[in-house]
């Protein structure tokens, strides 16, 4: 997401990549920075996926524990630190969901989504808070611009942790339809973010 930074982010004191290389050198204060920056997102995601605060707390702890243990395997310049962290958390959630597959998965309505969005940000870091808000705005705007049936498969796949065949079963749709919707949804989102990025760059230039 380095491309989707606001100008405030560029003046942010510590870059994610600097932090992760410091974590790799066993600097726990750098991990604390990353925790303060991303634990809120990891926790909200885990809570939405698992619907259980205790499990979500475990996911947060385990995610950052793995960041600490595996920071040496993160290759600078080949990916975003945030995406890497979220990927670890997401995989942990999917593992947990597969363990307790009997639990029904619910797709949140937009109203419910709005309801958990606005937790006051009590962090001292204004730049971090601004980046977080901006990223949320971008993704919600993009999600709002794709057709509801595509958004549904996207959410069931990402937040529900369901495979394509499980989604097909759940929605009573042919697997081919689910695959097409997933692909179209992600492609459309990619293009929207690309356009936005161009727009933002124009604005900054």
């Amino acid at each position, binding site marked *: 997401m380095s491309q989707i930074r606001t100008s405030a982010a560029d003046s942010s004191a510590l870059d994610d990549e600097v932090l992760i290389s410091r974590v790799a050198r066993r600097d726990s204060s750098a991990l604390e920075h990353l925790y303060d920056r991303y*634990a809120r997102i990891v926790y909200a995601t885990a809570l939405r996926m698992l619907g259980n605060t205790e499990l979500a*707390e475990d996911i947060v702890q385990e995610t950052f524990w793995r960041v*600490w243990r595996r920071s040496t395997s993160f290759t600078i310049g080949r990916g975003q630190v945030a*995406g890497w962290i979220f990927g670890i958390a*997401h995989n942990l959630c999917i593992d947990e969901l597969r363990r307790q597959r009997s639990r029904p998965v619910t797709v949140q309505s937009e109203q419910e989504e709005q309801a958990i969005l*606005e937790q006051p940000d009590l962090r001292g870091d204004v730049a971090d808070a601004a980046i977080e808000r901006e990223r949320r705005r971008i993704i919600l705007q993009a999600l709002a611009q794709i057709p509801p049936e595509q958004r549904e498969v996207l959410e069931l796949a990402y937040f529900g942790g369901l495979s394509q065949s499980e989604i097909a079963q759940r929605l009573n749709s042919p697997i081919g339809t689910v695959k097409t919707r*997933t692909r179209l949804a*992600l492609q459309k989102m990619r293009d929207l973010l690309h356009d936005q990025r161009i727009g933002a760059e124009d604005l900054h230039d």
Partner: protein
Amino acid sequence: MTLSTCDEIIELIPAFVLGALDADEAARVATHVAACPRCRAEAESFRDVVGLLPYAAGALEPPPHVKRQLFARIAAVSENPVAPAAQRPQRSTVRPPVSGGWVVPALTLMLALIIGFGAAMLEARGRADQLAAELAANRQTLRSMEAQIAELRQTAQAVEAQLIAAQRELEETRTQLVASQRELQEMQASGGKDEQLVSFIAAPQTVSRPLGTTERAPEQASARMFMQPGHNRLVLLIYGLKSAEPGKVYRLWLAKGDQAIAIGTVTVGPDGVAEFVVDAPEPMDAYDQVMITLDEVDTAARPSEEVIFEANL
């Protein structure tokens, strides 16, 4: 496994990056993507979307203990460092390849390498499993300790609540006791006063005389005074008088020539009775006149015109 074509794989990449493929399909895509730059580029083109999706869930501060436990765990490991598997030195049995076209030794070496690597992997995995198990056990212990702490805290809270209730009860009892003591003292005091009053009135040297009523006195009102020659004490008994209206008092005056001295105020009970015992500054023989007036509360300098009772001595 048959080699997958790019067209086949590209169709699966969106579900792959969302983590929504079954394990075998995911493995197929991962293998292909690792080898194929075009498909890898396609997968990476979705990086921004997937990296931003978590923000759609919102942002919630995890409880503070999560961070505390995480960093306690890190501190514990730092004190007892365990070399990460990736940084572990290679096994010394693996030797660098020797020159020569020997197929068999080369194969043997390959085998040794594979076995060595496998063993290292197995060892690493065994260690990882062991660590995971320890971790799970530690976490379990932590959970049960947390539960115990919560339970203890609850017990402590209950005890504290009981203590507070008991203290409150004690406080109430103490207040009641103080009130009872005060009541007892008052009763004793009034009992003593009554006794004094009776013995004074009944004493043979006591002289009694009625006080005259004025036209301002209620019709039923009467007053009598008791005193002893050569003594300062004066006792007044008054009947049939209404309580003074707010802002006013009944005041007793003793006059000597032109000079009137306010001796005290007389409180009339709800039954219209007032008993008044006072020790005058001088023996009662020194005074010429006694009177009771209805005065403003704050005018004790001279008697008002509103005289209720009076008597010449």
